[in-house]
């Protein structure tokens, strides 16, 4: 079976890759493109460690075929910082120790960023529901939720 040739945009860069029709976006990101920031925690949509955005919509890359990226725009954790300058969410997670082992962190950050773009002033309940599909075995979630709320407040303050 011939591989498929896919033309897409990843983190703003025009990107081409070859994939098998059954390969997931997560497989291709990690194994073909060397972007190992997105993690595979479950491969079945439960853990959110593989979170990316597809045309700015938050999705699990393990539940998306790589072939579906054709003509669309993917954003991953690798596109979050501006070079060495961390994104405010990344900075806040470091400062407030909102991570331990870090396996869930890329997915949580991508998901939280998507939330703040849609809703710059979420309530704690809204943050918890939005992140319900991002499982963390270490932190107990509290520090994650607080880091997201604090970043949101900082960003609102900066925008004024």
């Amino acid at each position: 079976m011939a591989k498929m040739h896919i033309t897409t945009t990843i983190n703003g860069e025009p990107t081409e890759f070859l994939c098998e029709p059954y390969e997931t976006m997560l497989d291709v990101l990690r194994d073909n493109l060397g972007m190992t920031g997105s993690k595979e925690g479950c491969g079945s949509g439960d853990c959110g460690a593989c979170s990316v955005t597809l045309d700015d919509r938050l999705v699990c890359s393990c539940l998306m075929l790589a072939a579906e990226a054709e003509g669309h725009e993917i954003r991953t954790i690798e596109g979050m910082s501006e070079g060495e300058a961390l994104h405010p969410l990344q900075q806040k997670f470091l400062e407030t120790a909102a991570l331990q082992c870090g396996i869930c962190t890329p997915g949580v950050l991508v998901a939280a960023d998507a939330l703040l773009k849609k809703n710059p002033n979420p309530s704690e309940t809204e943050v918890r529901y939005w992140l319900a599909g991002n499982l963390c075995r270490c932190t107990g979630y509290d520090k994650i939720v607080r880091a997201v709320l604090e970043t949101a407040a900082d960003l609102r303050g900066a925008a004024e």
Partner: protein
Amino acid sequence: MTDIQYVAPSTLDEAVGAYAAAKGAARILAGGTDLLVQMRAGMVKPGLIVDIKKVAELSAIEKTPEGGFRIGAAVSGAVLEEHPTFGKVWPGVLEGLNLIGSTQVQGRASAGGNLCNGSPAADSIPGLVAAGAIATVQGPNGRRNIPVEQVPTGPGKTSLAPGEILVSFTLPPRPAHSSDAYLRMIPRTEMDIAVVGCAVSLTMDGDTCTAARVSLGAVAPTVLLVEDAAKALVLTKLDDASLDKAAAACSAACNPIDDKRGTIAYRTKVAGVLLKRTTAIAAERAKGG
């Protein structure tokens, strides 16, 4: 998984053609939140995957000339939620679809996939059944329209013929003072499978209920339309005696499984309890609107 092909046709005719030609070896791909999980688990091994999201009709949300809504089968919950008016007219349909999975899953999961996957616990289906939604289906022999409740025929099974693709759901125009609601009972508050789901759609005239449809999920091999429950509500003021009667009709309609999430006795009882709670929410919304 070696001999597998992926196509993403831009017209429905091409999609039906490719799907029908593969004679059962093909699978339709909408959001993939069931299909990819099943492929990974080795439960399905399609020879051809037909991605339907590039077909405009399957991704559209439109007003019908009669004043109802037509929702493409592949529209995701996240997209429907962003529609400016749909959720005001059909809050119950929307809340059913948006209970599916996490934010990530909602970004992809469609009502069409939820229906065609054939789970008795599919969260978006009771709302569509209560709404009186009509499913439009297209296959090699043309198009047909069937009530949504006639699509599922058992766990994982539908009445779609080989080669048929679900195209859209058509929801009827809404009289004034109509609304709906969906509630499910689950052990957690998110990311779980319904033990019982209940949708109620009502039209009110003052305090009197003038029209009702009731649907239950997860209590039988398919989602159920419970006509006896609706009859018990119509032309009443939704007083306790009428609600008791409707709740009893819901419990009587149950033919559930017994498993670790809920026993038969529990599911049967909860069906009645949810009927009362869901009716109260739908009535409140209908009086407001």
